[in-house]
């Protein structure tokens, strides 16, 4: 992506290759980072349910999952975009603009709410298409473009509704999105999230398009020569990202029964954090959806548990930041140490023989 590797990966390629050969059976199945993050998630859940009162209750699980729905949804297209080596920082602003569009339409157009929801998702796709045109059509860096549209869309969302809030959505709609599945404490909204995750997962891991995404992330030029239409694929990824943002805008509005210009402000950085925590390389070309889903859950569970343990909500950002840094520093440190050990062993063998 953006900041091209100023510090290239440590010179352990050959070593890693041999290592992989030895442990292929174990590691090929899961991918070491995916496994680590899932294990970390399990440990955190276990620890929290033992030590934090009220954590392992159905009611808490319901709120935890409900709070994670926007993050999980936004992380899906973001994963694919980052894998191609691009980034979309405008997601939270698109959610905000979708939310205010919904509010304004409900306030003044007299359309039915079903139609409004569809229109909001479509306008989200349109906003994403604008990103896509700038990035693929004009060949501009996505980091700069989406910082621009981050400001533009957030500004427009204030233009649409000013500083007022629309809150008079019908109660049966606002209740419906927070309902649990009958007989359980799992919110209904988890179902569409899982379905979408399945769709994105299949596209990424089981189709030629998905393989092409990795190819362009690793080397866009080579992918072009291999017959992948890089620009068109990236364009549609940005469109998909916009459409999902529109969907999240609808959900956000109904969940909090309020359409405001500042909805979801700052969420883009959390989404990027979750994706990187899930093991996706910011350079593109590496990562998987399972890791990202686990990353989203880990982020959510940790924050929820600490909040229940009476840690100030704002101070919790220390956890987010530290997790992100640890998730990128640790693998490098481990690879470094391993490479050094291997070299030492080789030297020892040489002197022995």
């Amino acid at each position, binding site marked *: 992506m953006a900041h091209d590797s*100023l510090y290239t990966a440590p010179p352990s390629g050959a070593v890693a290759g041999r290592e992989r050969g030895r442990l292929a059976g174990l590691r090929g199945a899961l991918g070491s980072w995916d496994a680590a993050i899932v294990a970390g998630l399990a440990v955190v859940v276990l620890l929290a349910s033992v030590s934090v009162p009220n954590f392992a209750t159905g009611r808490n699980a319901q709120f935890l999952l409900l709070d994670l729905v926007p993050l999980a949804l936004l992380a899906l297209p973001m994963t694919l975009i980052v894998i191609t080596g691009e980034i979309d920082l405008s997601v939270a602003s698109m959610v905000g603009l979708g939310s205010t569009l919904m509010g304004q339409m409900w306030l003044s157009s007299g359309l039915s709410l079903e139609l409004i929801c569809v229109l909001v998702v479509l306008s989200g796709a349109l906003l994403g298409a604008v990103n896509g045109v700038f990035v693929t059509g004009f060949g*501009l860096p996505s980091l700069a473009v989406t910082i621009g549209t981050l400001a533009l869309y957030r500004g427009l969302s204030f233009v649409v509704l000013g500083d007022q809030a629309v809150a008079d959505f019908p109660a049966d709609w606002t209740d419906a999105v927070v309902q649990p599945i009958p007989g359980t404490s799992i919110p209904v909204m988890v179902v569409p999230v899982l379905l979408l995750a399945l769709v994105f997962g299949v596209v990424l891991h089981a189709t030629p398009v998905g393989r092409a995404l990795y190819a362009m992330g690793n080397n866009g030029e080579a992918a072009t020569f291999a017959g992948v239409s890089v620009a068109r694929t990236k364009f549609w990824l940005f469109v998909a990202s916009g459409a999902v943002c529109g969907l999240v805008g609808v959900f956000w509005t109904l969940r909090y029964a309020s359409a405001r210009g500042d909805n979801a402000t700052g969420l883009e950085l959390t989404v990027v954090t979750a994706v990187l925590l899930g093991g996706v390389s910011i350079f593109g070309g590496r990562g998987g959806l399972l890791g990202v889903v686990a990353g989203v859950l880990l982020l959510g569970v940790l924050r929820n548990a600490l909040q229940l343990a009476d840690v100030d909500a704002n101070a919790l950002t220390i956890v987010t930041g530290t997790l992100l840094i640890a998730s*990128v520093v640790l693998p490098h440190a481990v690879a470094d140490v391993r490479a050094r050990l291997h070299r030492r062993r080789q030297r020892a063998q040489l002197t022995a023989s």
Partner: protein
Amino acid sequence: MSLTDTGVTERIANTSPPDAGRPRRRLTERLLAVRELSLLLALGALILVTMLHNDRFLSSQSIKDLLLGCAILVILAVGQTLVIITRNVDLSVGSILGLVAFATGELFLAAPGTPWPAALLLGVALGAVCGAVNGGLIAVAKVPALVITLGTLYAFRGIDYYWAAGQQINAADMPRSFLRLGNQTLLGVPVLFLVALVVVAAAGFYLHSYRSGRELYAIGSEPAAARLSGVPVGRRVFAVFVASGALAGLAGVLYAARFGTLDAAAGTGLELQVVAAAVVGGVAIFGGSGSVFGAALGAVLLTTIGSSLAVLRIDPFWQQAVVGALILAAIGLDRLLAARMAARLRGRSARGA
């Protein structure tokens, strides 16, 4: 999208002189290629239009407000420019500013007699320490600055919240002499703005005339080539992050002096505004090109837009949207000029000139 391509062509665009005298180059295009000039033109046009609407816009009081308003953003933009030129980015400046501003307030609470120069030095030192954390992590982990500074954005802000624990510091808690620093004028120019001018001049001179300053451009153009030609890339990048942190620390102290009332949220979201100022100012997001003068003008332009919208009676909600559109226009213009320049250079080398 080919990233290296962008960097190269943009660099060509800004190092124009060799064929500057050629008659075939149209005047407008030549003027546009000097970003500082086109920014000044835009700024002039904006001020003119606003003044025609309301001639009090250029009263000494409103100019003073304008200069006061942009001083902090200018200082941050200078630090950001140093970082971006080396093909990195520092997203943590807003959090460093907030942390240092709060620390300054705490310092005066704990030791009311502290002379303000001591507070200033301590603030800059704290900022430099934060910058050293960024630079050190980037050097150790060998991952892009975007990821690390995204992490420290959260971490520093979290420390700030943890420390503040909901407490607020008021102007009454700070010595008069310190607060005067934030509002005093020298020959009608706010001291704050003079500080910013000194910072811009010093950084501009350093980048232009010092060997290590030129090396920053070399690093940003092509890190691998810079390393091969003997530039101590790691050390320079570390130093750049320390400098960016120190400038953010300086901005934090000035923020405290200017506003007096402080809580842990000071400077939230400032990082994107700073990056926007640099990008509008013609600093290429992929490094190797741009100047601190351009970035400073970008910061002034962004601030001026805010106040002229108010004078022009345009809904203030449009401000952010205009800023976003401006970013897109700036990078689009860069791209266009770079493409034309590249075409011309190709044509000339084909003719064997």
